[in-house]
């Protein structure tokens, strides 16, 4: 395999995916299972550390763009269900956090644990439940 960078602009890894650095990308299956097992304690409110402004902007982009491929950029649903405030009104926040981190087996919803921490998922759920923010121009 040849890395080709002469004529196409070389892209800084951190520029490609600012969301993902410092997070292990590929969980070995046992590790993932272990992570899943201790999820219940990990998502205890005390563990939450609110994402900073830059991280929040990254999360807005991630939800609008990447989650948007199945749930729609306007979160009105697609292959995945709608994630609007109205649609989620009767869903407990804790179960939504678990869904984001663990996925929903048997459906296309993947576990996002390799890319999102508990605090990230909690913040996303809180924002979804109050109507998710729009992406600002620089929030890429």
């Amino acid at each position, binding site marked *: *395999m040849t890395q080709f960078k002469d*004529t*196409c602009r070389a892209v800084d890894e951190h520029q*490609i995916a600012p969301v993902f650095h410092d997070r292990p990308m590929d969980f070995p*299956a046992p590790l993932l299972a272990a992570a899943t097992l201790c999820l219940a304690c990990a998502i205890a409110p005390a563990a939450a550390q609110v994402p900073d402004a830059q991280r929040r902007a990254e999360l807005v982009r991630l939800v609008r763009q990447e989650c948007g491929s*199945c749930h729609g950029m306007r979160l*009105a649903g*697609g*292959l995945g269900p709608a994630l609007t405030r109205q649609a989620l009104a009767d869903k407990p926040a804790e179960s939504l956090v678990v869904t984001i981190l663990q996925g929903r087996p048997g459906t296309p919803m993947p576990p996002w644990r390799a890319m999102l921490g508990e605090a990230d998922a909690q913040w996303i759920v809180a924002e979804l439940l109050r109507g998710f923010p729009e992406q600002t121009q620089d929030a*890429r």
Partner: protein
Amino acid sequence: MKSHPFDSRRDALMRLGAVAVLPALLWLPGCASAPAETRGTGTLGVVIERADGALTIVDTQQRVVLGRVDGLGDLSHASVVFSRDGAHAYVFGRDGGLTKVDLPQRRIVQRVMQAGNSIGGAVSQDGSLVAAQNYQPGGVKVFDARTLELVADVPAEVAPGQRSRVVGLVDLPGQRFAFSLFDADAIWIADLNDRAQPRITQFAGIGRQPYDALLTPDGRYYIAGLFGEDGLALIDLWQPQPQPRRILAGYGRGEAPLPVYKMPHLRGWAVAGRHAYLPAIGRHEVLVVDTASWQEVARIAVAGQPVFVMARPDGRQVWVNFAVPDYGRVQVIDTPTQQVVRTLEPGRAVLHMEFTPRGDTVWISCRDDNVVRVIDTASFTTLASLPVKAPSGIFFTPRANRMGL
């Protein structure tokens, strides 16, 4: 600033000019005179600006942006098919909008809200019908391609009051459309020869959760990818009694799948020579299958979960892009050796690729860099970089002349 006498004379002239132009404008629609710029439609293409509900119209020969059409609604996951003359694009929006856009004139000529949530469409073999596949309400709606009047409604009703989301809609020879039912593990074929009375052939139990499908370029095989199991469903449409069968069953070999952060897309471009190149679900692999025997002949390790696996029109190369977080890369497979021969980094968040009809260039949308790169497929040099806001799907008018696109 003091007014020069000439200014008032010029104003008067301009007013006169306006008066003279006005009747000309009113007269224009019925007028047969040539537009300012004459060009055919064979080099036209559109790029979806997913965030802004707009199309950028491009010329693939000059490699330039010609203009922009907006007001198309929610274009997250939008797709496009073309009228046979390449003059009109039918744009299917996520919000159920179906918009007919005149490409040379760069304007919307017709727009209908035909569903609550839509995913794509197809044009019939004779070009007279355009069909939309919908998630909500689940089913297919067929329209007159000229007027966008509803011709037929085919609800994907799998139990009383229960509908399935529809994926993988393609045109088949003979005024027919094939599509797959994600929630019902089924493939249906709708025959529209009698517009008033569509005939539906149903195949049940084709495999779990078909997520998208393709028609081979000869129109013979319809292949649906399965999300819920390792394998694909294949129907040989040339058989007198077509029956679905499973191919590449168990390609995951029982290993736990990796997370699939974005669903692969199958439509259109997978066949290169005698082989089809297909994305594996939950594996960073491209599966190679012999189209004579439908047996796996190779699997090629790639840089992430493949989303689009697209053969260059001559079949010599297959280009692959990936789901987040590996979507900064594009890989090129050399088909004779079945090796990845290039890894490119054209920009951030590569969402789609489209070849010019003879494969000299590939156009790649880099969403987070707001750019479409035009890359020479022989030298891999970047020939042009067109500014397009949050580009996603790229569609060129020669698709009008291919089945299954």
